[in-house]
């Protein structure tokens, strides 16, 4: 190669090489809403993870005797700002409920369950959606049946069916895994198997487009097996839509769980989740609006921040937008 017009070692790169993920991070950083969303979501996650270890009140402790009368229905400390006679207690920053249980502690514990349900259901739905999408996109034989199945699931009235299914299987699973574990498995499974359709459709479309590319042809011509093909060549290239639907999936799962709890079809009583706390407080919201506001605010804030992260991620992962 002595007569090559340009010798490669003379050309100095103007900037150090950058990885794809550095580019994505740069684009993501420039989206202000997404950065705020990521920060708030991280804060909420850390708070519910470590808060209960730091916080001094036991969320499930029900005071008895005179303590009960002294402690029940304590208002949040900030009510003292406008109502001097309000019953407040510095040890109970957000007050207590009608049984004297600490509200902040219950919010922290409840957040753990709400977020755990959201994440677990998201993982299930993304795995299902990716599996079905890749199979339908890669194997032509499976495409028709799997996509008809997706259409069928999209045509099901989901909320009514979720309610019916909770009613049907709650007792059976509660016998097998205990009331909390059973409900957790039930809700995660139900939310997971009713929310994979969008992911499957997007992944299938992307796989169909990728299949026509040269590198797939090259891989096939050296005899790559279908499993290797999917794992090594297809999946890494459809990661970005999967990541976006994963973030948005957390939001949907949290909302669905809270909606089920709100309608009285969620976790058993005295087992706090944000939706359940909201539901329990509705009857007395005229006297104690804070018991409705805090869980509701936390649900909305979590979902809002997750949605913003998803929005920013979509922009950051789209090479057409990135770098503009």
């Amino acid at each position, binding site marked *: 190669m002595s007569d090559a017009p340009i010798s490669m070692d003379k050309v100095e790169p103007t900037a150090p090489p950058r990885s794809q993920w550095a580019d994505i991070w740069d684009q993501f950083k420039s989206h202000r809403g997404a950065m705020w969303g990521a920060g708030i979501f991280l804060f909420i996650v850390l708070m519910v993870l470590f808060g209960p270890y730091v916080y001094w009140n036991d969320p499930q402790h029900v005071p008895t005797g005179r303590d009960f009368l002294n402690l029940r229905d304590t208002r949040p400390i900030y009510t003292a700002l406008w109502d001097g006679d309000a019953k407040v207690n510095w040890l109970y920053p957000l007050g207590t409920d009608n049984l004297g249980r600490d509200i902040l502690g219950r919010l922290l514990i409840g957040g753990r369950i709400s977020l755990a349900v959201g994440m677990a259901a998201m993982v299930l739905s993304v795995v299902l959606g990716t599996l079905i999408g890749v199979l339908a996109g890669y194997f032509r034989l499976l495409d028709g049946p799997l996509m008809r199945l997706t259409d069928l699931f999209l045509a099901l009235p989901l909320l009514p069916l979720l309610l019916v299914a909770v009613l049907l299987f709650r007792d059976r699973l509660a016998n097998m895994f205990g009331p909390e574990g059973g409900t957790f498995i039930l809700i995660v499974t139900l939310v997971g198997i009713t929310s994979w359709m969008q992911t499957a459709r997007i992944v299938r479309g992307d796989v169909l487009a990728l299949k026509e590319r040269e590198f797939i042809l090259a891989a096939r011509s050296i005899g790559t097996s279908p499993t290797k093909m999917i794992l090594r060549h297809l999946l890494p290239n459809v990661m970005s839509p999967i990541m976006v639907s994963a973030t948005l999936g957390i939001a949907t799962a949290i909302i669905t769980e*809270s909606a089920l709890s709100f309608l009285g079809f969620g976790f058993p009583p005295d087992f706090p989740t944000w939706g359940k706390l909201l539901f329990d407080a509705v009857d007395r919201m005229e006297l104690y609006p804070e018991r409705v506001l805090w869980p509701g605010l936390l649900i909305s804030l979590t979902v809002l921040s997750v949605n913003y992260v998803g929005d920013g991620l979509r922009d950051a992962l789209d090479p057409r937008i990135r770098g503009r």
Partner: protein
Amino acid sequence: MLTYTIRRLVLSVPTLLFISFVIFMLLELAPGDPLAGMPLTIPDEVKAKMREALGVGQPFYIAFPKWLYQFFVVEPLFMIDAIFGTSFGGDTQRVLSWQTRSPVMDIVFQRLPQTLWVVGTAYVVAILIALPIGIYSAYRQYSWFDNAGTFVTMVGFSVPPFFSGVLVIVIFSVQLGWFPSIYDTTHRVTDWASFRVQLQQMVMPVMVLALQITSQLSRFMRASMLDNLNQDYVRTARAKGLGEKTVVLVHVLRNSLIPVVTVIAIGIPSIFGGAIITEQVFKVNGIGQLLITAIQANDLPMVQTLTFIFAILIVLFNLIADILYGILDPRIRYE
């Protein structure tokens, strides 16, 4: 187009059959017993007769076709009877609710007006708000109006109706006392004063539902407008000297409305689903509330019928959306 419509209609029959079968089999598993509330003094043989009369315990290959026949043949006949005063139905067996022992469809038609009033108004209000917001946000992309609009739609997206509903109750009926927190369905509109009361009680449920729908629609409208604003035909229209108003509101708007119209059509059934929660919050005794009480009371025929009605609505409006798309967009031609 006609052949496409007919083919889709024919194809939707197996879809609906399958969905009804899924719903039916799911409910077959239900542990509930319609005679659980009966006195224990009733002898067993009488109980067995009562079960037989209610059609409980039949194998599914008898019960399912029977239910299909009742739903698709008997109930429409009774509907025709009710409208035209005929008597095709005669004394055939109808789908009976286990709760009230009266025909399910009668109860559904009693509850339907409330749902339609609230949900329908909310949908119209949402469309009227969402379209202008979407158009202006896209036209002035990244202006303060667009940013504020994006934030508000994000919030509307993220705040679930069971919180926004409770929030407006706390603000507008507890603190300010402007509107009643409970929707009174027995209220009759007879004069201006009662019409005002009706409007007042509708404001909050409509507001909550409309916020949700507006945020989805206006985002969609904005995206669709943005797609079209950079097209060549827009430049051509401007180049030949058309006014800005004509360019945006006639040329761009008409083209961007095509996908939005189909989204509006697809959204109609999901609004019935979303209304379940809103109805529960404001105690509107519409279809959603009927479904919840039926599920809690183990009233399987009622649950079955209602879920199936929801499924029919979804399939029907998906079909309508596809056909609308074909009619509105001449580039799309179905074989």
